[in-house]
């Protein structure tokens, strides 16, 4: 079924793109020409008519394949009820009906080409055909991933332009091939004029399409590409690399035609040159059709960013962010490498412009570029493991972090120490000192690296053992989430009672709460409200809660809300008292939340280490509407500051004025 699905999608894509390309090339060929070019034009329309039948037939198979895919059952492909749902209750169905109707319209227009050409003229007929086919292809974007992005239009526009650009270039190659082989007497006018004109115009159109592909590629890439490492570690990535190789092959062919044959074509048109070009065009077309087959498989393969089985095949990966800040030597070496590559481009360009041998220029440039890569790339190398790009299956949320802390206490402190500084009771007896886990979280290690170490140990001869037998996968991710929060807690020492304008640097872990009247997640407020998280002890915090109540309106005037979370004594707080406050007071199951946010209590003076681990009676945080912790107040250490509610309200007013930013990095931990 899978193979049938790939084949049908491939046929559908090929048919649509080649009709568009063929009609475009016919349009570009303009008027005139001899009998052989007229014959070629007629053949093009016949071929397009044949392809439109394939388009319709392949299209007819798509709903059944979608039904079988959704139901995970081949029989569903013929189940009327399922097909009805697919066609009439999903966006796929709506888009399919429009596309299939347009496919029928394409067929009918081609079938009636004679009266239509007589009525409106051939050029107008071709413009009509290009318009309908392009519309059919553009419609498909509405069931692509681009359609589910927010905002929808950049991805949709990018995807649509991409398809059209690819169609007019790749889809036009077969028509170009047949034009080049349309006559054995092409040295004579008017055939030579038509072929020359078409080639020239096709070249210009391809250049324009390159611009379109470039811009739309940047837009789509920016919106959708996640991690390049997944290219080598997932089936999706492997198909993609195959596609890249095929594409490079196509471009090499295009280069051969451009540099080897086109100059000859300019001097003297001949059947021999046309035939030689046509052979290369045929090879380019065949490669393109194979490329479309790979693209059809890709379309139905689990995307790399959502693939669960991600196996990195190399012992090294390259990462600028992991290495750039390590030392000035690294930066210098990389810069020298970049300079050599730039010099290679400049040298190649200079030699070609000077009129020297293109081959020699390319060889010289390639050698210099390879030296540049040899110098600049190795310093960016970081040790990698098969799980380096593995995706976390457990979100970075309080309940996971809290469970991870328990697991850390049970399994890790003997070596890493209670404070995670690598100073546990067994540390001195080990062959190598355990890692200091309090060091800032860096890009040097991915969560996948940590997962690998926890499941396999650090390797032969190293003291860190495997925990695969004692912890299940969820627990391993809990532990990793805790280690992240623990490490970020040290970064949190920079938090002050006042916000640093426009400078968010620390994500606020999400948490779930449930009270007698309300339940939800911190994240529910994302892009809506800033939050004052007030962690209190009961009854000691009553005065603070009363102060917040008294100035509640002032505090919440700038799209902010108050959430009070009991660190201690929540169970002792009567419901009747809770109801007196105009803001949310969370007293049930607060331990995961408190433990998570306790990580961010650390200051440079009060380190939060083993000898200083007592929680304050009260901690306040501001969280901006994009999910970042922006300021912190610990009354015992900084008395007075947030007692002034006007000051606090002013902070929220400043946050409300800040421009929209992206959510904290790695929120969907990969």
């Amino acid at each position: 079924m899978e193979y049938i699905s790939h084949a049908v999608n491939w046929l559908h894509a090929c048919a649509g793109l080649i009709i568009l390309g063929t009609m475009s090339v016919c349009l570009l060929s303009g008027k005139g020409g001899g009998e052989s070019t007229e014959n070629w034009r007629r053949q093009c329309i016949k071929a397009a008519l044949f392809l439109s039948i394939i388009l319709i037939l392949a299209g007819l198979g798509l709903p059944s394949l979608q039904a079988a895919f959704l139901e995970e059952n081949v029989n569903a492909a013929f189940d009327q009820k399922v097909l009805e749902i697919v066609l009439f209750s999903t966006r796929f169905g709506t888009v399919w009906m429009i596309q299939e109707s347009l496919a029928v319209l394409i067929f009918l227009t081609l079938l009636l080409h004679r009266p239509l050409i007589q009525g409106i003229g051939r050029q107008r007929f071709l413009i009509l055909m290009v318009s309908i086919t392009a519309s059919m292809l553009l419609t498909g974007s509405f069931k692509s991933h681009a359609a589910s992005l927010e905002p929808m239009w950049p991805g949709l526009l990018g995807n649509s332009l991409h398809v059209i650009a690819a169609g007019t270039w790749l889809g036009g190659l077969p028509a170009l091939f047949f034009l080049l082989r349309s006559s054995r007497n092409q040295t004579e006018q008017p055939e030579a004029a038509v072929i020359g004109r078409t080639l020239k115009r096709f070249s210009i159109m391809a250049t324009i399409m390159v611009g379109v592909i470039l811009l739309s590629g940047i837009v789509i890439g920016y919106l959708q590409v996640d991690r390049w490492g997944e290219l080598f570690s997932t089936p999706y990535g492997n198909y993609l690399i195959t596609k890249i190789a095929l594409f490079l092959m196509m471009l090499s062919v295009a280069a051969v035609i451009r540099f080897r044959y086109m100059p000859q074509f300019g001097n003297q048109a001949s059947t021999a040159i046309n035939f030689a070009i046509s052979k290369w065009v045929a090879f380019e077309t065949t490669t393109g059709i194979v490329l479309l087959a790979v693209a059809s498989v890709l379309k139905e393969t689990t995307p790399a960013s959502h693939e669960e089985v991600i196996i990195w095949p190399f012992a090294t990966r390259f990462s600028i962010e992991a290495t750039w800040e390590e030392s000035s030597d690294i930066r210098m070496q990389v810069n020298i490498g970049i300079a050599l590559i730039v010099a290679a481009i400049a040298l190649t360009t200079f030699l070609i412009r000077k009129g020297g041998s293109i081959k020699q220029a390319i060889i010289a440039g390639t050698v210099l570029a390879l030296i540049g890569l040899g110098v600049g790339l190795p310093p960016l190398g970081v040790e990698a493991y098969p799980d380096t790009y593995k995706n976390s299956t457990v979100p970075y949320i309080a309940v996971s972090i809290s469970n991870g802390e328990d697991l850390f206490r049970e399994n890790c402190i003997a070596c890493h120490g209670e404070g995670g500084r690598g100073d546990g009771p067994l540390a001195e007896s080990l062959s190598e000192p355990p890692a200091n886990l309090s060091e800032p979280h860096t890009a040097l290690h991915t969560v996948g690296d940590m997962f690998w170490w926890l499941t396999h140990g650090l390797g032969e001869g190293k003291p860190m053992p495997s925990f695969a037998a004692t912890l299940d996968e969820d627990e391993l991710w809990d532990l990793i989430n805790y280690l992240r929060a623990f490490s970020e807690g040290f970064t949190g020492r920079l938090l002050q009672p006042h916000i640093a304008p426009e400078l968010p640097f620390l994500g606020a872990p999400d948490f779930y709460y449930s009270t007698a009247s309300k339940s939800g997640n911190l994240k529910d407020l994302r892009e809506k409200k800033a939050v004052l998280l007030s962690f209190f002890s009961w009854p000691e915090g009553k005065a603070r809660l009363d102060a917040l109540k008294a100035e509640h309106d002032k505090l919440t005037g700038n799209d902010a809300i108050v959430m009070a979370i009991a660190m201690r004594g929540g169970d002792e707080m009567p419901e009747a008292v809770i109801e007196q406050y105009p803001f949310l007071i969370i007293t049930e199951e607060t331990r995961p939340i408190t433990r998570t946010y306790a990580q961010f209590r650390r200051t440079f003076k009060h380190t939060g280490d083993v000898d200083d681990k007592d929680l304050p009676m009260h901690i306040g945080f501001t969280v901006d509407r994009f999910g970042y912790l922006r300021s912190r107040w610990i009354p015992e250490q900084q008395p007075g500051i947030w007692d002034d509610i006007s000051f606090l309200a002013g902070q929220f007013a400043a946050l409300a004025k800040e421009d929209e930013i992206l959510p904290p990095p790695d929120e969907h931990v990969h």
Partner: protein
Amino acid sequence: MRHTTNRHLWARLFASLLFLFSSAGVMAHAQYERSDPGRRSIVTRPPEVIKIWFSEQLEPAYSTIVIKDKVGEKVTEEAATVDAEDKKLLLLNLPRLEPGKYTVFYKVLSVDGHVVDSKFKFKVKPAKKTP
């Protein structure tokens, strides 16, 4: 004339690479974002409705939630619905849940035609006894 052609070729090479790379994440899935009750949460007040937010808009016809109790019995036969205003939110009304552990199974289809299914657990604990 020649240098213009070269520019075209380089532009074409770069664009083609981008075109190919840009397809890297073209297809994605509706990922679980958050829920009420939350993953592994413990609640005293039994939820009347379960809400799950996803990263992408959902197809109502193919988005389901099934909740089972600790012995694997379905707690309701009612079908999940996609919120009328927020197409990323899947809802299921619940009967009154007794204290105990529950598993939420969900299967969703995003508008780009891809399916995701997974599960999570939550627990309803007995209400505090009032004197």
